[in-house]
């Protein structure tokens, strides 16, 4: 998807904002974990029950990462990006809580969006090391 081509803009602009701050391996790890978890959710989209359970697990991981990033507030842009990933994940899980389960296509596209956005945040954070 072209989204992956667009997200480097976040990486670059995030860089500009946070270039003078210190790399935080804990924060970085949290967003890598979100990326991995979203990827796991995507791989379970064939089975709605498994996707739903994996989605709940993803929500917890995203909540921790978002809380960490927004509490630090060293970069408003990272905090805003974290909030968007959190909102995407909440919407994903709300679909599975509804009476009508979402389509497999929705599951795949939404999980891919979460994964790609989280990956962009992690890349942006990693730039602090350079």
């Amino acid at each position, binding site marked *: *998807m*072209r*989204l992956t*081509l*667009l*997200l480097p*803009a*976040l990486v670059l*602009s995030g860089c500009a904002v946070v270039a003078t701050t210190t790399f935080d391996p804990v924060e970085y790890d949290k967003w890598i974990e979100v990326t991995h978890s979203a990827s796991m959710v995507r791989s379970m989209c064939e089975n709605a029950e498994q996707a739903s359970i994996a989605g709940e697990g993803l929500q917890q991981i995203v909540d921790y990462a978002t809380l960490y990033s927004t509490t630090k507030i060293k970069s408003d842009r990272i905090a*805003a*990006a974290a909030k*968007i990933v959190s909102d*995407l994940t909440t*919407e994903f899980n709300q*679909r599975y809580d509804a009476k009508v389960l*979402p*389509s*497999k*296509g*929705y599951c*795949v*596209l*939404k999980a891919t*969006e979460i994964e790609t*956005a989280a990956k*962009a945040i992690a890349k942006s954070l990693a730039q602090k090391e350079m």
Partner: protein
Amino acid sequence: MDLQDLIEQLAYLDHENETDIAGEMADLITHIKQEGLTKEEAEELLKDRVELMKLNSVLADDEQLRLVEAFIQHVPGLLFA
């Protein structure tokens, strides 16, 4: 402004700003059609995509943003007529 005008203006702004918003939208619409999403799901994913574009500063200016927002309002009606 009808859909044809919107597409032409999107393509023009892409050319002017060296962006590929029209291509991005085309990809998403193709995925939505292929994967058999419901209208509600499609609306949500289109909205998400605009949010991510805003976040990533992909949109060059307010005019481009307004155009993309107007465009995505047309898409569900077009796909689920």
